[in-house]
């Protein structure tokens, strides 16, 4: 699911830590960032500072229930 606009990235990443499974961010160019990895968090923060890159990407949760935890930050179809 794509990210909402104007979200607080650090709050979103804290919420990701509460997810049971892996949470990944896929960029338009096919990069996969594991949002529970320390380095990838910084990459994600850098990428999402560019609004165009941020909204062209997609968040995927391995555990379906984790989408509920991130609902405030994701655009539900």
């Amino acid at each position: 699911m794509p990210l909402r606009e104007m979200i607080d990235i650090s709050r979103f990443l804290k919420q990701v830590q509460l997810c049971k499974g892996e949470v990944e961010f896929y960029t338009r160019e096919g990069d996969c960032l594991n949002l529970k990895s320390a380095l990838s968090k910084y990459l994600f923060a850098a990428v999402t500072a560019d609004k165009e890159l941020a909204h062209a990407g997609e968040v995927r949760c391995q555990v379906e229930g984790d989408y509920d935890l991130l609902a405030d930050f994701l655009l539900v179809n």
Partner: protein
Amino acid sequence: MEDGTMLDDRNYIKENLVGDIPHRILLFTQLLRAAYKIDSWCLGGADDHVHLFNSSSEHQEILRTFLEISGGFDFIALNQDAQCPVFFSDALGCIWAGEWTPQNAEEFGNLLFILGPVMYGKNTIRNLESRLDSLHHSKSVRDALLAVLQEVPVVEPNTFMSLGVMLHCVLTGEEISMADCVYQSENTAGRSSGEDEEDDILHPSYEQSSQATESLIMRMVREGDVDGAKRYHGKKWLGKPLQLDIYDSMREMQDTLIVFIALCSRAAMEGGLPARLAKNLEQQYISAVESTRMPTALTDLSMTMFLDFTQRVQSVRAGPSLSRPIQDCCAYIQTNLLKNIDLKTLAAEVGYSEYYLTKKFAGEMGMKLSDYIKQQRVEYAKILLQTTDKGVQEISDQLRFSSRNYFSAVFQSFTGMAPAAYRAANTAKGGSSCR
């Protein structure tokens, strides 16, 4: 701490801090920017609502996010009562320093001033580039991060720590030393559960003692000059920069500290510390260096080690009244704390009967032999609690206590606090001796 409204309000600082502090802060931040390109930040707020009042950073939004996900806020909040500069590292290898204002600003409470980020060596960015190469991300992802980090200034550790001391002076008017600052260590890093540890990158460069500095430090250790050591380690850290930039900077920093430990150990032996004890201490501290992954923790460890050797030499030199066999007995105990120590072996080691050794030991030392062994194990446990992230059970087992409960009871009887409480108290405020 969570995000709140981002403000850019220098007037708030001017209106809510009294005296000439606002003027001093603004001048200091301008000087930092002009001389070192170091950014400064002023924040305030409660746990769930943080305001950024002012920042000199050109990458304000993204670096603020970096600061928030570094866990540094939590570490600084934990040390608010310390009333001194707090240094911490993030997973990229950048270093930050912060301190709370002593005055309450209305609505937002104490304000927090942060300096950074800086890097301690050029290798930090080079190694990060290598790490990113290995991940095979697209150019746009890679460049998004590197574009920000390439603007981060490289500053020598001594210089950055001095700026932290200056920040304290700006905020309070008080003069302090580097030893009064708090340095984040491994077990105060506060890694989130589930966070991947493998890709943390910490690469500061380091420093090496010049010959004159080295001679001065070694003299202090050799002579057990604790007062001199306390004065010295608060002022300067290890002399001239090495700055070889030939390999991993964190490794370089660790290697330099290992050399320093070996030199202190040698000087302590020359000062009268029994060789086996000195070598044992040397191994303990080298193990701690090898298990350390944070530059700020190495600073803390270096100061602890330097004072520990110096204080032990002072103790040896102050107590020449002990007979040689009892000195040997103490040295044997101190070097075999991780093994079972039985009276029969001890007696054989010093050439006395078991009965005579216990009597003579109690007579000279003023305590039972068994109590001395417990005391020394507690001293060792203190070092492990301060410098490693080993659990209480593991430390209890390592030091041959029959159970965790018994270890905790013995530890409490000597220190007045439980092991976990001791760790919490002594790792939040860095630079304290492990004695």
